[in-house]
């Protein structure tokens, strides 16, 4: 091969590879490409879990760091007669149901929950959109509730069913729900909060009870929690991706 033809070959093959790469780049818009893009989510989750270990805590701030105003996001008020009635009764008739793959399904009233050992934490809420707000949350560690009902060996995820419908649909698929795995469910900062900044949780922030799972983004922090269902898979629920926003394209693992 002469220098000239070798050089031509190298230029040609490099250009060819570039064209192929660009074609592949265009194809990423297609479904196969979407699968490739999604592969990064698994990598992110594994890397973060490896670096965190089970117990690494989210930063806790001081009272002085609390945001002067905490943006209300998502639903501001569940639009159902059932919720309106519960609110009217100051949630005296509200019950948190815990069922699914548990040894002893139970219901808890708000008074029951407030009698249990509580945890208070001042943490940062990070919306997937990019903004952050710091608030003080008081509630019951989810892990202690799950221990009190006992999990069956096949339990893998906790699904939080909420009272709000973020999108009005005929089949109810617009109802808010979320799911977390047991590592996050038993994390010491994962609490079901009934108070924010020292007061009962406001309706805009998810009264009477919301989830705080502090190592993930805002959309995981389900508001208006009505029922916690322990499952071995969330594939059969609504869109099958484990949450309202997950069914609409967002990552199930929202650590970044």
């Amino acid at each position, binding site marked *: 091969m*002469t*220098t*000239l033809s070798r*050089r031509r070959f*190298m*230029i040609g093959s*490099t*250009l060819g590879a*570039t064209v192929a*790469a660009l074609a592949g*780049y265009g194809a*990423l*818009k297609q479904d196969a490409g*979407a699968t*490739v*893009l*999604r*592969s*990064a*989510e698994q*990598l*992110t989750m594994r890397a*973060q879990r490896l*670096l*965190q270990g089970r117990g*690494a*805590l*989210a*930063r806790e*701030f001081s009272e002085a*760091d609390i*945001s*002067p*105003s*905490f*943006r209300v996001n998502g639903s501001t008020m569940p639009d159902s007669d059932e919720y309106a009635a519960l609110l009217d009764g100051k949630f005296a008739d509200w019950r948190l149901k815990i069922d699914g793959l548990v040894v002893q399904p139970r219901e808890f009233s708000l008074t029951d929950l407030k009698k249990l050992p509580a945890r208070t934490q001042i943490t*940062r809420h*990070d*919306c*997937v*959109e*990019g*903004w*952050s*707000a*710091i608030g003080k949350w008081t509630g019951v560690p989810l892990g202690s509730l799950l221990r009190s009902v006992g999990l069956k060996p096949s339990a893998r995820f906790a699904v939080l069913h909420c009272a709000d419908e973020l999108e009005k649909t005929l089949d109810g698929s617009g109802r808010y729900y979320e799911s977390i795995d047991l590592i996050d469910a038993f994390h010491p900062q994962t609490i079901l909060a009934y108070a924010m900044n020292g007061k009962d949780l406001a309706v805009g922030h998810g009264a009477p009870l919301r989830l705080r799972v*502090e*190592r*993930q*983004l805002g959309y995981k922090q389900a508001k208006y929690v009505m029922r916690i269902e322990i499952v071995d898979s969330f594939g059969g629920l609504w869109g099958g991706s484990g949450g309202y*926003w997950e069914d*609409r*394209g*967002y*990552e199930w693992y929202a*650590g*970044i």
Partner: protein
Amino acid sequence: MSDEKTGHENGRQAGTILIRRHSVVTRVTHWLNVLCLTALLLSGLQIFNAHPELYWGQYGADGDPAFLTIGSAEDKGGLRGFVRAGGIEVPTTGFLGISSFEGEPTARAFPAWLTIPSDQDLATGRRWHFFFAWLFVINGAAYLRSGFLSGHFRRDLAPRRGQLSASYLWHEIVTHARLRFPEGEEARHYNVLQKLTYLVVIAGFLPMMVLTGLTMSPGVDAAFPALLDLFGGRQTARTIHFITASLLVKFVLVHVAMVVLSGAWNNMRSMITGRYAIRESGPKA
């Protein structure tokens, strides 16, 4: 470095030789970097559009004082877009704040032609961003490893003795400003302005992008809380991420301009095939 005399078969005039300028690692990682940074920038603008305000500190949301806002408002004249920073508001209708999307004036910070995907779709933008962020980090790690092991950094990027003196730097700046580029033996190596610029990008801007990006992650913050102290909060990190990205865009603009001005074809060939033509020293042809 093996120099190769080129004979008559490639039709080059005598006195011009091709040297091996860039290693295969430099070339491959360079072009992967082009792909990654392009995807990261355009998907990053999509993500920015979801909340087009920047803040300093640990928190920041609507109602908190913003360092920079790209917004829109409606008044008698219709929709107008603006950029507001430090109390100064600049009208940017048509480009920032308000731009045309599918023929309609649409309220969005960065226009459709600058975002991946072009419509407002945060979920897809995030998937692109994090996929190419991983590729960028893996590519960068491969480049750094090779750069240290092969001696590329020490040999090609570290300034030589005397190159950092004020008088020499000033001389280099003046000759660059006159668009006079090194020739002959001098062209065998990066000049000192190139070295310093590449070092700032490789050791400064790019690691800064990764670190500020990671600081925005609540999961990473739990693993490495020191990141929050390093940058002074998630929102500060987000602002620095944006500023550093805009510095990288400026670097690329200057970089491409220099590539074109100092011999577009020769530079392009050297980054594709590795070979770069220089005039042999000695009597000029």
